[in-house]
């Protein structure tokens, strides 16, 4: 039975370890099952859903800029970014996602235990339906378009510094990559609800590490760094256009997501949004009665058996009545 189920949970005990060896999760006592399901199950679902969606977003936003550039190079396969940047892309944009996937908590564990109804977000598949997946992919597509075309048109063919120098491919590629790093990291900062020092370190640390990497890579001999020699220190950092472009692109890429989340939180908030607000404004402490009432409402009784069927029928009729009203 454990093997046949979607997720099998075994309890190790006096009957031996056979159930444990056959199961996906094992616990030591039966009472741990509640925590496993309602707290970790809920968090796990949210984390995996958000991580996968963000991963799609991140790779689409980065990869499509390479494809757009091909249209400008006669489809010869020239990359607009230096090879080493793409290696560092793995590190600099993936560490924040890992911290999202491992440490994210939309509501705290006490709330999960008090409101088992939050767990229903999982079985109802609210966070990994096609609407959400395609939405994130569309966000990635939009981000790649914004990053690429804003950079191309801003650095078109005129000088980009007061000294009259024009931008070569390395300067354009470095600026574009800087915009990507900023946009992606701000996006994940907007997505996360739970911030510990690890999340701050990975997000802002990634951005700082990018600049450090550019400085160090640029300081290596031109045999290794090629055209990127001194690119940050000499060419880009003194140019106001570099910094203004980065600011513009980073904010513009995140505008659609911000508008969407603002709309959702204002007009169609989801359960965890409300609970986050209650917790933030300490309304659970002020209005203990409301908090307890919501907790009991958030529990549904048994789902099987005669009583459950009767209650389900009553709920159905009630909802029909409400709709008519």
């Amino acid at each position, binding site marked *: 039975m454990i093997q046949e189920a979607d997720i099998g949970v075994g309890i190790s005990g006096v009957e031996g370890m056979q159930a444990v060896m056959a199961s996906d999760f094992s616990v030591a006592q039966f009472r741990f099952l509640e925590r496993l399901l309602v707290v970790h199950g809920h968090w796990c679902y949210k984390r995996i859903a958000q991580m996968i969606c963000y991963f799609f977003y991140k790779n689409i936003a980065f990869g499509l800029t390479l494809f757009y550039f091909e249209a400008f*190079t006669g489809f010869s396969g020239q990359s607009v970014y230096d090879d080493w940047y793409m290696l560092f892309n793995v590190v600099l944009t993936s560490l924040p996602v890992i911290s999202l996937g491992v440490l994210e908590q939309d509501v705290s564990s006490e709330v999960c235990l008090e409101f088992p109804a939050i767990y229903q977000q999982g079985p109802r598949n609210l966070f990994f339906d096609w609407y959400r997946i395609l939405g994130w992919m569309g966000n990635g597509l939009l981000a790649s378009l914004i990053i690429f075309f804003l950079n191309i048109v801003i650095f078109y063919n005129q000088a980009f510094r*007061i000294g009259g120098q*024009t931008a070569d*491919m390395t300067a354009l590629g470095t600026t574009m990559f800087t915009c990507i790093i900023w946009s992606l990291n701000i996006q994940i900062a907007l997505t996360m609800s739970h911030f510990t020092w690890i999340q701050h370190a990975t997000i802002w640390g990634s951005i700082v590490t990018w600049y450090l990497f550019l400085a160090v890579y640029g300081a290596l001999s031109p045999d290794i760094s090629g055209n990127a020699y*001194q690119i940050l220190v*000499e060419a880009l950092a003194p140019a106001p256009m570099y910094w*203004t472009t980065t600011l*513009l692109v980073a904010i513009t890429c995140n505008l659609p997501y911000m508008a969407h989340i603002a709309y959702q939180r204002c007009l169609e908030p989801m359960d965890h949004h409300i609970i986050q*607000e209650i917790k933030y404004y300490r309304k659970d402490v002020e209005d203990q009665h409301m908090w307890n009432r919501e907790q009991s409402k958030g529990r549904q009784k048994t789902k099987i058996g005669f009583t459950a069927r009767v209650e389900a029928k009553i709920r159905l009729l009630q909802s029909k009545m409400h709709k008519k009203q």
Partner: protein
Amino acid sequence: MLVSIVFIPIGVVSLFASRDVVEIIDQYETECVPQNFRNDKVSFIQSNANKTCTRRLTVTKLMKKPIYVYYQLDNFYQNHRRYVKSRSDSQLKDNSGWDEVSSCKPEDMSNGQPIVPCGLIAWSLFNDTYNFSLNNQQLAVNKKGISWKSDRDRKFGRNVFPRNFQNGTLIGGKSLDPTVPLSKQEDLIVWMRTAALPTFRKLYGKIEWDLQPNEVIHVTLENNYNTYSFSGKKKLVLSTTSWLGGKNDFLGIAYLTVGGLCFFLALSFTVVYLVKPRRLGDPSYLSWNRNPGGH
């Protein structure tokens, strides 16, 4: 709202900076071919005919020095992968690497000897020249300091001299003086920084003289470079710069657009908030309260 407050002033400032820049662009590749050769420009450019051409540029607004002279090429794919690969950085850096030409094919060897500097990028060096005069007085063009300092100091060696260059059957562009080391060949250094887009400008020199409005500059140019085989365009550009760079209104306009959009969004969300307020933390929005009797 904060974003719009920050962005709109930046946009205005950038737009004003771009508007301050004065630019004169002159496209000359068709005009500088004599009438009788207009039907077959490729044979003209490959022949030994006289390629001198005179152009007149009128200054529209006051241009303060330094005025930067660029040549602009259209439809020239300096960003093609095979082209970008075709160079040897170790050869350019130091004399000891003079025979490391493997990455430079097909422009690696000529008459059995390695070419210095090898590769397609160096081979296709732009070779039109421009001479400017104002009221019959020569305007000096400063051709020093047009490349990046790091290129001059570290990438192009002081002990590397051109040899065996443009010695083959096909001449792609300018020849180089074999007595001048590469670190001083600034036209080559500027050219070898491959551009990102098929339409690009490269710095030719600087004019250290103010130009008053309505002055007419006479340009005597040598139309040597063959862009006719691939329908490329050649333009001569004179431009001043501002603190932001050359003339490009787009940054300012983009900032204003994004700032305006943010302002509009802030306004509409404020209106929605006033019309249909939602008390934060209001439990009546929880899903089991909104759909009583079933989720």
